[in-house]
């Protein structure tokens, strides 16, 4: 399929670039698609490219030698992954799997170096994006170090309910999460997530409605997750 300029424009990496610059960059972009649960990248393998999610959602995660999974982030449309390996020359820092059917744009490491040399304006966008990622990981370390599991789960539920688009929106905009995935995101075991969900329900913060987790007391979840209501 042909690479679409309009889609490139909507990716924060390419914000503010002229039509001519986008047309030149387009020549370096390749498209890749994957089905739900397809492995896209394996950690520690040689890095080939930086990827941009055009549609769908992927998860970036690490696996311990014991097989425990820690999800580092969920990447949605417009966002990128594997940037670090492309810029520092190291291997893929984490594995990536598709949570829904996905369409990706990619730029190889060599082409990205060429693009940055030819379009230095792009570097400002890259710095902003990498800074945002550092901020995300600082927040993740803070949560894993200082917050209790139930509070971390409260924060996850809030972020997930508010950050992933409306119900019935574009397919894949709001991926559903298993309790196993929630456990991997908040750094605990699946059984603990089950108990924490029960605790939140008993407290009246959520309601388990079959395949839906309904937030009925948003304020309480904000208090637990340390989020200041705006």
């Amino acid at each position, binding site marked *: 399929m042909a690479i679409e300029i309009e889609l490139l424009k909507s990716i924060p990496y390419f914000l503010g670039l002229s039509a001519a610059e986008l047309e030149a960059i387009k020549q370096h972009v390749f498209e890749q698609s994957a089905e739900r649960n397809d492995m896209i990248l394996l950690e520690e393998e040689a890095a080939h490219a930086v990827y941009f999610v055009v549609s769908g959602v992927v998860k970036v995660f690490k696996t311990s030698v014991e097989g425990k999974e820690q999800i580092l982030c969920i990447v949605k449309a417009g966002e990128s992954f594997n940037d670090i390996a492309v810029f520092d020359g190291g291997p893929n820092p984490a594995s990536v799997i598709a949570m829904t059917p996905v369409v990706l744009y990619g730029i190889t490491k060599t082409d990205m170096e060429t693009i940055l040399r030819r379009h230095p304006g792009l570097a400002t966008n890259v710095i902003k994006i990498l800074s945002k990622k550092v901020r995300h990981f600082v927040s993740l370390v803070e949560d894993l170090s200082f917050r209790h599991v139930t509070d971390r789960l409260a924060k996850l539920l809030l972020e997930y309910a508010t950050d992933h688009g409306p*119900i019935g929106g574009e397919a894949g905009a709001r991926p*559903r999460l298993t309790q196993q995935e929630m456990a991997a995101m908040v750094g605990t075991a699946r059984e603990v997530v089950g108990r924490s969900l029960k605790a939140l329900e008993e407290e009246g913060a959520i309601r388990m409605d079959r395949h839906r987790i*309904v937030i009925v007391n948003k304020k309480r979840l904000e208090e637990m997750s340390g989020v200041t209501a705006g």
Partner: protein
Amino acid sequence: MLVKPILNEALCNGCGLCVTVCQCGGMVIVASIIKRVDVADCRYCAECELVCPTGAIQCPYEIVIEESIEMTIEE
């Protein structure tokens, strides 16, 4: 239509643990492969997912705020 656990028959090893824990009789093993009993009143308790050693059963949740459900219904 009721949403039910997602089964991946290719991953099933036929151990039958899901059949043991299912409180509504919603699972059976046929020729060493998991099959769903569609008439069963699945409560989506996710116990089958918890005990499955191969990841053949998934019970994903949609996470929503109550107000947005109401808005969707009104639309």
